[in-house]
């Protein structure tokens, strides 16, 4: 049996497992506090989202979200145990309790939100599926791709969107399906496929790993909606609320102009909205099972949403992705958080 199958099988057995698992799942927040660290499932190598850097530290916007959670819980963004999961392994790992949450470019869909026993806590990155081709092929639009070979990763919504798109446009294609992005990259670079498809952010991320990134262009068509965000298990509303509000806190901090550089000043602010956000007024942190200065801890640890974005995927990072639909609602984007009051 392959090692992958073995991992899945072990996870499946764990799922079959004991009542102990089910007990632990009902009280994830208590279990995490008792353990002293968050078990966070991340992607195994998507620059900008989750990838180890040259010193072996995990970096990326998905990684930073887990750090924000750890900062809110323990006042220490380092108290995270990262588990690298492929697209194929991720749900079983979460369902079986191996990780407390997934923060790894996972698309929010209806079936995942219902029959798979998962709940999405928000959308940390609005994305859409795109195509990358070699410049040599002289392709300008995805409509010209009839008959092409397509490299795609298994166990993703990408695989399904691809089939839908080609069927809807009465075109044919030849899929070449890999389990891991690294083998996918090698095969695409060796010319096994004409097209590389995944979420547009993923295309930018993988392209910087190529030997000659400049030889490849990303086509303008975006063929799907891919809302990516953190995922938790169903049936534990306390933990769901904590994860959800950590995400909202990151957005609210950006909206109110609170960032990692000025947070020490902002604590003294007279603005009632900032006072509620930073816990100098009200009992909002205690309400979700945390301390009242939870947002101060988050912002000190990883900054606000804008800082996370700029550092990992923004125009000044190697990925160079414009903020676009991921701007705040009052700047023309889709990122919107309910108020803290």
């Amino acid at each position, binding site marked *: 049996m*392959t090692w992958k199958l073995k991992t*899945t099988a072990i996870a499946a057995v764990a799922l079959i497992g004991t009542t102990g698992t089910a007990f632990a*799942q009902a009280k994830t927040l208590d279990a995490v506090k008792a353990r002293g660290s968050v078990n966070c499932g991340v992607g195994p190598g998507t620059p900008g989202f989750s990838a180890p850097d040259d010193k072996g530290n995990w970096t990326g916007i998905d990684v930073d979200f887990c750090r924000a959670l750890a900062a809110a819980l323990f006042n220490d963004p380092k108290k995270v145990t990262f588990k690298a999961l492929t697209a194929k392994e991720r749900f*079983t790992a979460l369902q079986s309790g191996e990780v407390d949450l997934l923060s790894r470019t996972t698309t929010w869909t209806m079936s995942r939100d219902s029959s798979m026993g998962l709940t999405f806590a928000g959308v940390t990155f609005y994305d859409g599926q795109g195509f990358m081709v070699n410049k040599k092929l002289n392709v300008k639009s995805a409509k010209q791709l009839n008959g092409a070979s397509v490299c795609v990763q*298994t166990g993703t919504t990408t695989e399904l969107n691809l089939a839908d798109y080609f069927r809807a446009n009465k075109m044919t294609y*030849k899929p070449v399906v890999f389990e*891991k992005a690294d083998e996918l990259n090698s*095969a695409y670079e060796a010319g096994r496929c004409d097209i590389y498809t995944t979420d547009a952010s993923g295309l930018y991320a993988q392209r910087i790993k190529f030997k000659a990134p400049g030889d490849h262009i990303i086509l303008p068509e975006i063929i799907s909606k891919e809302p990516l965000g953190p995922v938790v298990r169903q049936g534990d509303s306390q933990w769901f609320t904590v994860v959800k509000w950590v995400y909202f806190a990151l957005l609210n901090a950006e909206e109110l102009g609170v960032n990692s550089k000025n947070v020490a000043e902002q604590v003294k602010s007279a603005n009632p909205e900032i006072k509620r956000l930073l816990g100098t007024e009200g009992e909002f942190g205690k309400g979700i099972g945390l301390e009242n200065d939870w947002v101060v801890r988050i912002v000190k640890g990883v900054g606000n949403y804008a800082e996370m974005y700029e550092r990992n995927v923004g125009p000044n990072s190697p990925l160079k992705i414009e903020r676009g639909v991921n701007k705040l609602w009052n700047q023309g984007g889709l990122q919107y958080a309910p108020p803290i009051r």
Partner: protein
Amino acid sequence: MAVIQEQRGQQASSNGLLSYLYRPEVRQVVWQVLLLIGLIALFWMVISNTRANLAKQNIASGLGFWDRTAGFDISQTLIEYTNTSSYGRVFWVGLWNTVLVSVIGIFFATILGFVMGIARLSSNWLIARLATVYVEIVRNIPLLLQLFIWYFAVLKSLPGPRDSHSLGFGTFLNVRGLYMPSPIPEAGFGVVLATLAFGIISAIATYMWARRRQMLTGQRFPVLWTSLGLIVLLPLLAYLALGRPLSFDYPAMKGFNFEGGLVIQPEFIALLVGLVFYTGGFIAEIVRAGIAGVPKGQKEAARAIGLSSGQMLRLVVVPQAMRIIIPPLTSQFLNLTKNSSLAVAIAYPDLVSVFAGTVLNQTGQAVEVILITMAVYLTLSLLTSAFMNWFNARMKLVER
């Protein structure tokens, strides 16, 4: 007096029950029954616990997903499949792809293993050393690495579709695979197939007749040439006589890729070559051990009656070595089948890749999918074992 008697009676009866339980045949049954009850209880606990846990977590269970639309495509399908087919169909596609690579792999691995095993015992120094080097290399490098090496070696050494190598007869080789013309039977081709079937059956009949005649009279009959004539010449004549009722669909460059014809994909080639070379190394060692296990006196006796070394190997050594070779050979066949699940790493759509991979992920029903996959490998292994046991029984030395 009466009281004492009563007490004694009780003692005797309790002694009777105990000694009854201590009787070996009863004791055996009691323990077996207790074990069985324990096992059933354990299974029942596991099953009910799983169901309860899945229900609590709101994860769908059962086989309701089997008839739902899959919605994704598969690169190699031996049976009819489109992206509107069901998850159940995906299962069969994956199963046949696994069976295909396993059967062809077992065939070639056996040939390679026998050749290398005999070569290791060769008196030619160079051949024996080369075989040793081969065996030691393939046995000592993890199969997954070997598969990557084969796959990326295949990919890197082949040209893109626009600069394909043309191999003649409408066959092309490029990084997307080996493209060959596919035969399309026309009216009358059925007759050619019927002649072929007739040829094969009569060749077998000839063989059996010739064998019996040789046993009885010692006269030999040119079975090989007669069979070749029956199997090759007869259908060929029929084919030509009927005006060549077979046309070909030639692959042609169209857009990005070759369209039409038959294609063997690089993933399949890499997986097959990887499995054949890896398993071949183990089979070579089994064959060498088997041949070495035949007593030296047998070879000397064969030489003494004037058999050539080829005849000696074929008629005396190998038949006796087979007794030693077959049981461990069975394990290697099972290993090859199970190792084919590494296909997932190099994009070959086997059962683990499409069913225990994509279907599991789209449905989220890990328990059902993994159980079904395990049942499939178990069934394939048991079938292989059953066949090899039958073969082993047939190959046993008949003592006269």
